[in-house]
């Protein structure tokens, strides 16, 4: 059963995840395009500039943002990150890797009361805090989780 599902989806192509998300109405087609691409934020080097470009300076710490990511990454090139925002009216979820050259890694815009949940894979060059910024109404909220990227080996 699982093997079949796996084979089917593999043959269906790599773009399917985005297609499914679009079809489900979770992501507005335009938001996938360049139209709403926040270039200054994605190009920003360092956290202060990135947060500034996002308009999220001084975001309040929130326990209603749950970040699920490994404590130690199995592969820094594809680190799975899941974010759940329980904050009412969540309109965007931003994932940042503080120590990456360009910290802003993903910016999800949620429409029409979509559930505050995203799952993605990010690239990390070294051990770093993964910072999530959630926008709801006019306010920004934030939470953080450290993910260690190690050279590996030498396990007991």
């Amino acid at each position, binding site marked *: 059963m699982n093997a079949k*599902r796996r084979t089917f989806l593999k043959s269906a192509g790599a773009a399917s995840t985005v297609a499914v998300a679009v079809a489900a109405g979770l992501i507005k087609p335009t938001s996938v395009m360049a139209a709403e691409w926040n270039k200054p934020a994605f190009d920003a080097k360092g956290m202060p500039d990135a947060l500034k470009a996002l308009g999220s300076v001084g975001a309040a710490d929130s326990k209603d943002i749950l970040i699920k990511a490994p404590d130690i990454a199995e592969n820094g090139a594809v680190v799975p990150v899941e974010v759940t925002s329980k904050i009412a009216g969540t309109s965007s979820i931003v994932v940042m890797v503080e120590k990456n050259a360009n910290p802003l890694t993903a910016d999800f815009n949620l429409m029409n009361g979509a559930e505050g949940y995203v799952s993605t894979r990010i690239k990390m060059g070294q*051990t770093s805090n993964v910072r999530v910024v959630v926008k709801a109404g006019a306010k920004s909220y934030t939470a953080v989780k450290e993910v260690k990227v*190690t050279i590996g080996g*030498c396990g007991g």
Partner: protein
Amino acid sequence: MSMTRREFLEVLAVAAASGMALDSRQALAGEVPKNFYELPKFGNVSFMHFTDCHAQLLPVYFREPNVNIGVGAALGKAPHLVGEHFLKAYGIKPGSLEAHAFTYLDFTAAAKIYGKVGGFAHLATLIKNVRAQRPGALLLDSGDTWQGSGTALWTNGADMVGAQKMLGVNVMAPHWEFTLGAERVKEIVEKDFKGSVDFVAQNVKTVDFGDQVFKPYVIKVMNKVPVAIIGQAFPYTPVANPRYFTPDWTFGIQDDNMQKMVDEARAKGAKVVVVLSHNGLDVDLKMATRVTGVDVIFGGHTHDAVPQAVPVKNAKGVTLVTNAGSNGKYLGVMDLDVRNGKVQGYKYRLLPVFANLIEPDRAMADYIKKVRLPYEAKLNEKLAISEDLLYRRGNFNGTFDQIIVDALMEVKGSDMAFSPGFRWGTSLLPGEPITMERLLDQTSITYPATTLNEMTGQQIRDVMEDVCDNLFNPDPYYQQGGDMVRVGGLQYTCDPNQKMGKRISNMVLRGKAVDANKKYLVAGWASVQEGVTGTPIWDVVAEYLRSVKVVKKLKVNQPTLVGMNKNQGIASY
């Protein structure tokens, strides 16, 4: 096996008569507890537990560490106590049988008196006796069973799989098992273990959909009490070992899924829930504060022999955490008194398995003889004689690792050498021959290639900082449970209490400070990268030993430590 004091003394007398160096005065001083292997029955649900036997089918010597430093919350607590501190914490009498079992103190002298430990034929007898008093008792194996010996390597784990089935292992959890490759693991689980051994791991999932690869838990019934055993594989298998062995599987600690499994098992009627874990003791201690509803965690990985269960409080109750040492040296016996649907009390013993005190099980002994037969000549090759006590275990280095880095530098012609901080590997007494078998105890892995690389001083430092953080990060969830990389040629200073990037300093090679920008030739082995080729480590070390012939007293290269003066996890350093 219920050996009385009188019988034990007879054994010692026989040993003395047969020429063993035996200090009878010390042995007769009365430090052997009466009826050492007699365990009065308690309660109605019993588990036997062993872990990290590392494929040692025959009795071996195994020296516990004199350096097992704890930092942060682990400071001064089990398992980070060594020598006298350990004896004091557990009320063990110095010079006793148990003092020898649990500490490094007077190791050589005591080992000559008490003899070797472990061995599956001896373990089998002990297990049969414990089971005889506790019909239906479950035998749990926390893994690292299919790796660690020449025969396990050459038979692709088959010798150990056969031994586990004969021993009557009911449930196991994995780590080094995965270094045989995903297909081989699947083959054993689906064919050899079918209908006999349950292989459980709640935290191994497929990379693509997050599907469970193995059964997360099993529910067994003992004395009409439904008991759930949840498996926890070593969470950092694809980090600490090559990821290419299990490319389609993802691991991790996964507390939330663990909680789900506990709740699910309880909902299905389990009155006792235990976790069979390969997290390592520090990780288990933390997990026990976060996951609720677990009665006992039976742990392994860090090779800590802890004589008592550690009770850990959490939001809904108490979880008992145990760790049962390594190399077949111990059998844990946990008796639970389960009434009115819950655990009311417990008794735990961690029994050292002294081969001289236990009659070997005939069938198991015959089996071991049979599986070894084709390899005996190869295993028994005498490579050299050692005048020093040889061991590996310890945070920074061991005498056998010193031989390995010396061999690497000599044979490869490098400036320095790295050898991984594995915790497995047996011990040899001074005067014993170093056979191929003993060398394979230290080296038999499925990625044994030796390497010679140019690295800058900065890269060398980065590697050492990285590994050091795996050992001394104050948060156990960021530790990997191995020891520090062993370093040959290079002197350094280490401050375990610092943060990553600040622990290693004063790196000196041949009297000169290491230059961050200069390139150095570094030999090593056990790379986790794919496609690395090179002479297997055992061939390199064997070549070295054959030419050396006699290993003299070794100068063990260990770092100068900062801030460890009062640490109870270090002695005789």
